């Protein structure tokens, strides 16, 4: 399955690295990634896919201390 995630992170060193590392380690691939610093923090849009339920990833992302919010925008069937 493919998922679109919207994350808001505090602008701390390694905040983005933590998200990328957690996503890889929990078995998800990133197919799209956009990030910009809004001044108040880092706005991250990420499309990921993986064989496991998305909560395997999101529950781990929620444990990151730099994460202020996380929304799953939509779920799409995986395309070839």
């Amino acid at each position: 399955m493919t998922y679109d995630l919207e994350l808001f992170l505090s602008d701390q060193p390694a905040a983005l690295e933590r998200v990328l590392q957690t996503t890889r380690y929990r078995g998800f691939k990133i197919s799209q990634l956009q990030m910009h610093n809004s001044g108040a923090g880092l706005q991250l849009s990420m499309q990921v896919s993986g064989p496991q339920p998305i909560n395997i990833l999101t529950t781990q992302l929620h444990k990151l201390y730099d994460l202020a919010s996380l929304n799953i925008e939509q779920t799409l069937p995986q395309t070839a």
Partner: protein
Amino acid sequence: MTGAQAILKSLIKHGADRVFGYPGGAIMPLYDALLDSPVRHFLCRHEQGAAFAAIGYARATNKVGVCIATSGPGATNLLTSLADAKLDSVPLVVITGQVARTSMGSDAFQEVDVLGLSLSICKHSMQVMEPADLQPVLNRAFAIAKEGRPGPVLVDIPKDIQQGFVPEDVPEQPAEQPLPQAKDTAIHAANHLLEQSQRPVVYIGGGVSMANAVPQLRDFLNRTGLPQVSTLKGLGSAENHHSHYLGMLGMHGLAAANLAVQEADLLLIIGARLDDRVTGKLEEFAPQAKIIHVDIDPAEIHKRRHADVSILGDLQQILPALDCHSQKSSWLERVEKLKQRKAFSYAAHQAGEDIDAPSLLRSLSDLSEEDAIVSCDVGQHQMWVAQHMQFSHPTRHLSSGGLGTMGFGLPAAIGAQVAEPDKQVMAVCGDGSFMMNVQELGTLRRYQMPVKILILDNQRLGMVKQWQELFHDERYSETDLSDNPPFSQLAQAFGIASCEITDAAEVPAALKTMLEHPGPYLLHVRLDHKANVWPIVPPNTANHKMWEQAR
């Protein structure tokens, strides 16, 4: 106030008056300030040893352990211990020196990106880049290390920040994350499942101790009388003498514990994560059982197995709310029979016979003080300790569970002895594991701590050898350690009293001598290399298909 002085002030403020570490270039300002500080520093002989000592301190007390190292190799030497603390949820604050800010990013001498290296093996990591941030960062580190599911927090501090002026700490305390509140509906649903079940089993994990909920657990078990099994980290949580306590489950679990779980129609999992070493073949683990999963970490719920009811929150509040009044007489009779039928029997220590490690450890358990602390390394001896020794509390059994780190035992015992200077502390080591942090004999010598070291020496990397024997057609690849040094002589070179035994008849007197010795002591026990750990659940096999003896 300099940054170094501020760090020490912060340690005192957070109750960390005993710390472990090893000095070096980028952390020298802090070590200089230590000379004028009430913080007591214990010099270990390797940064990995210092961090394991901090883990031993933390696990023996459920307080935050602290260790200190320099940049570069000092920091990289810590990494295995950080991963160990992460996987076993141990609260640590680890302070590393870093090269000065003006040199960062230039591949300076002893510069390494420890912040980047630590990301996947720490609960959180922070680098202090402004003097004003130093004390708030340390406050946050202590809060994060112990809140919720505990874990290690790394704080990397450039040398110039340690040397320079930092402002006084602001009085504002960081707000602790509130624990999730268990939902009444989940409690009711759990109690309903408990009432309805015919064959329930309580599966106890390390989270019980970390939540300081051992009294609440024991009260629940005494109120309900339900059958109980434990993970490696949960050992000591239930009362050993409880008639329905069945011991450890899993790959080297006790047969009665594994069989009861496989027959259960309900598992009440408390502070545990369904580790693969516990479940065996996951698809066939407790196949008829519904699951109630109680934990503080939402990420563990449904991770390995769907939970019919999940309860997130503080075990101190949840356990008193759980109950079960319905009678399970036939199930309890079945459990009692299993326990009786599958109980271990122990050999008398007869002259002329090889030393039997399980019998020796049972004797050690019987002879030692009730609240003795036992630390162990990783391998066959670790499993024998878990199977055959008894612990009055989970803080009395220190074992590297998740990471399975050889070399854990001796430095963790040192940390436990620092935490509990008046308690009996023992390190039960394998010959392979002992050599991985053997330098910490120097730490024992320096502080003359009365740690007792028991080396169970089968001249092999025993657990790997066992797998080669059972599952690799006896193809023994690089597991012969018969060229290890004579450990008794090695101890004496460090000024530590020692003894070597080879015959079973020597066991009782040797244990007594060791335990009565006033200072550090090493007992070298030679075992037959053919001895293996039983039961064993072969890989990708259901737990009820365990092998209980050699085939």
